[in-house]
């Protein structure tokens, strides 16, 4: 990266013609060198690992071969089918559930909308394996609900559990994305439909939901990719049901068959890419969008519709909360399944290594969030406003990590950075970088969404009044980007706190983070300790997110709280 930084400005001079008609000055030089630096870093930390993993899948002993793919398609069709089946089903359920919850918040006459919204945000902070762990604690053969309360002795392992947990787990993000779009649609269209004699159900089905289509498809894309990439849930509760992601994980950590794992990773990309193309088409062909949030909907739902939405939404909320309560209880129960009485022994048993890795998690997450958000904002500005040469390519490159399943980016990093001149494995740097670039799509898209809604005339005005490029950016654009920065920070911080899929491959002694400690605690079967760590992660993440939101949004304190909440939504919606 250092090399790329030094010799770039001069080389770029000719390109600036036509872009900067106003002033070719020192500040533009800086702007272009920042652009080049970031573009090079994206190439190094996103594209190069992707190439490295693709190469690994088709080269064996220095020769080009497609054996891995052929054997996957001939012998392991079942894996492919399992993956697609589970992902499709849980995506469908997650989106339906998400839509219901979103409609509940945006359109129904029920109480407690803010509570539901808060629960949605809370559930974004769920450390890996926690839902699977609480599922076994609750519904296992000796689960407190199935065995202790209902006296059942059922086998909880199999694809049903995976689909259940994934669809409920992903419903939160689906609901938030759809909600963002629902709030943005022009409510006068609904009014028109009502005026023309349609009833509320007809209006909902024929006007509201079709208008929300881009959000629904975006939600489907996110859920689908996350299900495909999820190896934690099937590993813990899948039983003998395996999917591509679990097998790829096993191929790396157990069998050291990197070519095969790389091929599996590449195969996971294909359905994700197809979903992405579908999504792009839907968004392109839809002409929804009123930028300003219109007033509360005038659509009054029928009593029964209200009840149905309410029952489903509250069941969803109850299920989510029960999971958190279970984990909280697990941290204080003497021995889960044997002695449920409260005790502090698991907290007292926390060792220095657990504390150290927890502190490390906080440090890494903070660094990744801060640097990643800054990079995201600047990239968005350069892509959306400046339209530097090659910005479309850069845009695509930045979006890529969202389609790459976590474990494969981890393996890709191992393959790409274990050798000179990019010898970086074994450092804390590479862990943080991995988290930054994995989350870059969110930060960039959040900022892009805000920028498309920010009239460029304001910047021109500032420029006309004599402000420099940088000044216009700093004083006009940056303040407007605050919500996007907040989203990006919170998203990167949260995901880095709870991530494991990619970075587990990058851990070395001395760089261990809390999630990996938790993984080990679950491995050794220590429910108490894993629950304690899970709670520490949840509480710390929640606390820092709240503190940071307060800090960033403080000037807007007097405004409606709903507007504050909205800050979360455009960015999540912005994942396009």
């Amino acid at each position: 990266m250092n090399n790329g930084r030094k010799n770039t400005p001069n080389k770029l001079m000719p390109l600036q013609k036509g872009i900067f008609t106003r002033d070719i000055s020192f500040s533009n030089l800086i702007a272009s060198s920042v652009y080049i630096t970031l573009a090079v870093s994206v190439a190094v930390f996103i594209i190069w690992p992707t190439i490295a993993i693709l190469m690994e899948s088709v080269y064996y002993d220095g020769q080009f071969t497609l054996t891995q793919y052929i054997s996957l398609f001939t012998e392991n069709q079942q894996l492919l089918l399992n993956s697609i089946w589970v992902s499709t089903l849980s995506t469908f359920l997650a989106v339906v559930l998400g839509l219901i919850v979103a409609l509940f918040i945006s359109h129904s006459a029920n109480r407690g909308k803010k509570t539901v919204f808060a629960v949605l945000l809370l559930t974004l902070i769920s450390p890996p394996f926690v839902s699977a762990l609480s599922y076994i604690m609750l519904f296992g053969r000796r689960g407190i609900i199935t065995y202790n309360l209902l006296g059942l002795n059922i086998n909880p392992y199999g694809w049903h559990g995976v689909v259940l947990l994934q669809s409920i787990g992903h419903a939160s993000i689906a609901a938030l994305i759809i909600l963002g779009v629902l709030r943005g649609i022009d409510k006068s269209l609904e009014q028109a439909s009502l005026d023309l004699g349609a009833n509320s159900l007809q209006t909902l089905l024929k006007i509201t939901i079709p208008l929300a289509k881009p959000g629904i498809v975006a939600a489907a894309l996110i859920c689908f990719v996350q299900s495909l990439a999820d190896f934690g849930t099937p590993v813990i509760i899948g039983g003998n049901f395996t999917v591509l992601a679990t097998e790829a994980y096993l191929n790396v950590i157990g069998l050291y068959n990197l070519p095969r794992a790389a091929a599996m990773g590449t195969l996971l990309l294909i359905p994700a890419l197809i979903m992405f193309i579908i999504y792009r088409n839907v968004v392109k062909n839809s002409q929804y969008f009123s930028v300003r949030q219109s007033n509360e909907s005038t659509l009054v739902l029928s009593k029964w519709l209200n009840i149905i939405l309410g029952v489903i939404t509250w069941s969803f909320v109850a299920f989510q909360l029960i999971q958190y309560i279970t984990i909280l209880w697990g941290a204080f129960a003497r021995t889960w399944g044997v002695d449920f009485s409260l005790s502090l022994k698991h907290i007292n048993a926390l060792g220095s290594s657990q504390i150290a890795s927890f502190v490390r998690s906080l440090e890494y997450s903070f660094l990744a969030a801060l640097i990643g958000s800054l990079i995201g904002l600047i990239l968005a500005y350069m892509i959306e406003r400046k339209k530097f040469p090659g910005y479309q390519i850069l845009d695509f490159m930045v979006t890529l990590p969202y389609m790459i399943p976590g474990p494969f980016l981890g393996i890709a990093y191992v393959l790409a950075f274990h050798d000179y001149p990019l010898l970086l494995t074994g450092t804390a740097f590479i862990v943080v970088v991995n988290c930054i670039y994995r989350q870059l799509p969110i930060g960039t898209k959040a900022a892009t969404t805000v920028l498309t809604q920010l009239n460029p005339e304001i910047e021109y005005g500032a420029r006309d009044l004599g402000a420099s490029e940088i000044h216009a950016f700093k004083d006009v654009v940056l303040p407007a980007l605050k919500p996007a920065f907040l989203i990006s920070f919170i998203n990167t911080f949260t995901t880095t706190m709870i991530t494991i899929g990619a970075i587990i491959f990058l851990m070395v002694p001395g760089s261990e983070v809390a999630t990996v400690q938790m993984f080990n605690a679950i491995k050794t079967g220590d429910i108490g300790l894993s629950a304690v760590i899970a709670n520490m992660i949840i509480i710390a993440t929640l606390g820092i997110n709240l503190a940071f939101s307060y800090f960033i949004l403080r000037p807007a304190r007097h405004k409606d709280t709903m507007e504050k909440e909205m800050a979360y939504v455009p960015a999540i919606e912005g994942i396009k």
Partner: protein
Amino acid sequence: MKKKALIFLMILMLAFTVVGCGEDNTADTQPTSEQPKLEGTTLKLFVAYDGEDEIFKAFTEDTGIKIEYLDMSSGEVLARIRAEQGKPLGDIWFGGGVDSFIAAKNDGLLEAYVSPEAEFIPAQYKDKEGYWTGISLVTVNFIVNTDRCKELGVDIPQTWTDLLAPQFKGEILMSNPSISGTAYTILSGLLQSMGEEEGWAYMDKLNEQIPFYAKRGSEPPQKAAMGEVTVGLAPDTGEALKAEGYPIVSVFPQDGTPWWPSPVAILKGAENLEGAKVFVDWCLSEKGQKILRDNCPRVPVRKGIEPPECLAGIKEAKLQDIDFEVAGNERDTTVEQWQEKYAQ
């Protein structure tokens, strides 16, 4: 105003370099040929051993050498050091399945070191050339949930054959041999003691009893303790689980107990080589052996040190006759064979 822009840019670049430099200062331990000053240096360990926190605390008190470690199954460590192609990520590999250590030795990923303490360790528990040295003996146990046995109306299984009883269908948990040293030793031990043909035939039948293969070595005993299954095949007697109050007993399979020496080895290219040697010496010393035993109930390898009380039964157990060299050399092919038969 341009100054501000410059400052902004510099902060950005600085942020990058600061993150980058964060870890560099750990490589400050150049071993000097004479009196090496090891106090205050750091050792990096990959660990598959229980009670590690207490063990390392005692080591640091004795030697002044600090320890940073990462818990990892031996199969995972093997995969990692292979993937890094010999680039050192740590100094020591502490505990796990001996098969992985032998495979790593064959791949040239370990550093040979014959500790002066190794003369007190019987030959079958260590590598001739000193690439790895056993620190304790691990035995495979059935961890049996007594409540579940009552519900099923069966006696506590005592032999491998007992596990094939029809009541145990779906009630026995074993981990995946490609990851877990325990599971691989069971597989290799049964194949060696029964012979290839009979061994695989037994595995076929056992496979019918197993609902799924756990992806983590210590999951089976935990699942058995929680009553999710009745029998878990485990690398220890589950003392910690018993202490938690779970209704379990441990059984040494009477028709042959698989076992292996859990080794310590120095990784090739270790940055703190001298410190690593001190660590190996300490593990094998009389004091180190007692500390290991007291924090993780396993049979010490060093002559003259009594096994922990909970393992007293091991004297009556019939230990399998296992050739670890064979187990290690055949690891890749055996695992692949297993994978083809049962993984789908």
